């Protein structure tokens, strides 16, 4: 009886939590729409004039374009129609590619950047945790110092410098991999390495710190007093508890990887969301820039939500209280 009501209460709590969070995300996105739309009104340059180029004398064409882009209507009307479009996944028309819907411009990049970030995350998390655990178990030894040295090195070298070095080494000196471009698996190797190294290094250092802390806990002494084999003490009892604080950092790292693709895509000339955003900024293709900003806002909100849900899965103490 008591059990059943507890279950029902839990379920209600979960629904309340989900509703609150989804409402929060919608609110954040609305604010992002207001801000990006507002910012657009203050940027210099008339996009229609840019679009017209040398046909700028053609008044009739100008009027037709203004109507097509909805720029002839009052600001509030433009905003309402933009907001309505966003809700339907329609971000309007691109300025740079005349009469092309923004969502078509985004399609290629959307299939690349989030996937690149996700693959980098999936690879760097186990690698980082593995390295951190390796170092923590050998605390104070040469192996630990060496691992930490490599990890510090990995964090200290800037991304673009490492990129030049890797390209020189593996594409020029020993031509194993292509210098740039996108489409073949070989072309994904260097960009992924560049994304993975800093993420892995960061996770590795955190894992070592958290694990050394957890290993001092009383329940680790209990696990040893039970006569558990050392790998069970480390992986089952200690590492499992580091996952709780680690999941926050992993969320942040995922966010970092998503924006990290901006640099990597530019270096390797990959047609992802990052290069698209940068080109669109230079081409004053504001509808595309706005769409990218909104997409990233959505990504970050979802990552945050994901981390919070993960907390509940990883730590039974959080399950009920949230």
């Amino acid at each position, binding site marked *: 009886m008591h*059990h059943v009501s507890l279950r029902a209460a839990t379920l209600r709590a979960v629904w309340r939590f989900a509703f609150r969070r989804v409402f929060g995300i919608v609110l954040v996105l609305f604010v992002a729409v207001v801000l990006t739309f507002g910012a657009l009104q203050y940027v210099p340059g008339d996009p229609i004039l840019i679009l017209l180029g040398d046909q700028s004398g053609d008044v009739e064409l100008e009027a037709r374009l203004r109507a097509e882009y909805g720029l002839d209507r009052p600001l509030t009307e433009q905003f309402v129609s933009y907001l309505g479009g966003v809700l339907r996944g329609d971000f309007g028309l691109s300025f740079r590619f005349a009469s092309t819907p923004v969502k078509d411009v985004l399609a290629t990049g959307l299939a690349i950047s989030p996937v690149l970030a996700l693959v980098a995350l999936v690879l760097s998390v186990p690698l980082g945790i593995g390295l951190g655990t390796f170092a923590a178990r050998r605390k104070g030894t040469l192996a630990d110092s060496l691992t930490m040295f490599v990890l510090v090195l990995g964090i200290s070298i800037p991304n673009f410098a490492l990129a030049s070095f890797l390209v020189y080494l593996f594409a020029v000196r020993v031509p194993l991999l292509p210098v740039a471009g996108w489409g073949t698996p070989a072309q994904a190797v260097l960009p992924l390495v560049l994304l993975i190294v800093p993420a892995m290094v960061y996770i590795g250092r955190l894992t070592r710190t958290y694990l050394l802390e957890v290993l001092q*806990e*009383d*329940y680790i*002494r*209990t*696990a*040893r*007093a*039970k*006569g*558990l*084999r*050392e790998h*069970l003490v480390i992986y089952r*009892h200690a590492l*499992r*508890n580091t996952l*709780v604080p680690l999941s926050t950092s992993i969320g942040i790292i995922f966010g970092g990887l998503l924006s990290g693709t901006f640099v990597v895509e530019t270096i390797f000339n990959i047609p992802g969301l990052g290069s698209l955003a940068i080109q669109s900024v230079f081409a004053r293709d504001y509808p595309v820039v706005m769409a990218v900003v909104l997409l990233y806002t959505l990504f970050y909100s979802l990552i945050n939500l994901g981390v919070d849900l993960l907390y509940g899965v*990883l*730590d*039974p*103490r959080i399950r009920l209280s949230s």
Partner: protein
Amino acid sequence: MKALLEVRDLRVSFGATEVLDGIDFDVYEGEVLAIVGESGSGKSVTALSMMRLLGESAEITSGSLRFSGRDLLELSEDEMRKVRGREIAMIFQEPMSSLNPVYTAGFQVAEVLEEHFGYSRKAALEKARELFEMVGIPAPEERLRSYPHELSGGMRQRVMIAMAMASEPKLLVADEPTTALDVTIQAQILALMKDVRSRFGTSVLFITHDMGVVASIADRMLVMYAGQIVEEGSVESLFESPRHPYTQRLLACAPSIGERKERLSVIEGFAPSPDAYPGGCRFHPRCSEAIERCSAEPPRLVRGVRCWVAEDS
């Protein structure tokens, strides 16, 4: 009586500082031996030494721990691991932090059976349920699935006892298992430990600073001061006629019911720190009966007492 564990000349150091100065004692089969002393006297270090679980900073520098025919200090780490939790089990002072917060109580007990006896998860959980019942956990079926934070301190200590008794060990080392609990819960846990001990015939090494607890559970006791045993004997004889001035003071400190004192008795001064033990008898600066010899020459443990004055009388 047969000795289950024979500790001889056990010495433990933290770096250059010796915290256990050649401890000798036996634990007999089926008995409860209490180790009594103030914080810092070396009683917890003694307990952890039995499990070889002192941690990185401390080291057993010499001595032997003969346990059912072999020296625990001679065992490899893997052989020692098979002794832990199987032949010697341990329960700790802090029931709040001694259980892993992310696993259920049932799983943490079942683990012992899986590790040492190759139980399947299902069989181990079934045995865990029986153990929960034995240690008086109400609604054991549901408590198996409870996480530590859902249990009270007393319940958690019962889970720890169930975990320790899962493999029916020959020796149970209990490091102040009741200190962190409410008085009423303390009494319940003590009663449970007595029950468990008589049911399995397990020997218990019981570490405490509480004379009341000693009186209620122990057969014999060792009194430790500054890394040494200063007196040993049966609980009855030591309570009746303590010979070492320190034991006398300790017993005088414990207030008892039916006795109203104007002032509670205290031992003046502080227990010395291991890096600054006084010469001669380590207790002499705090001792009201000290004679000249006490500051000059360290007494040895003779006929159960380490004291020049008591030895002469």
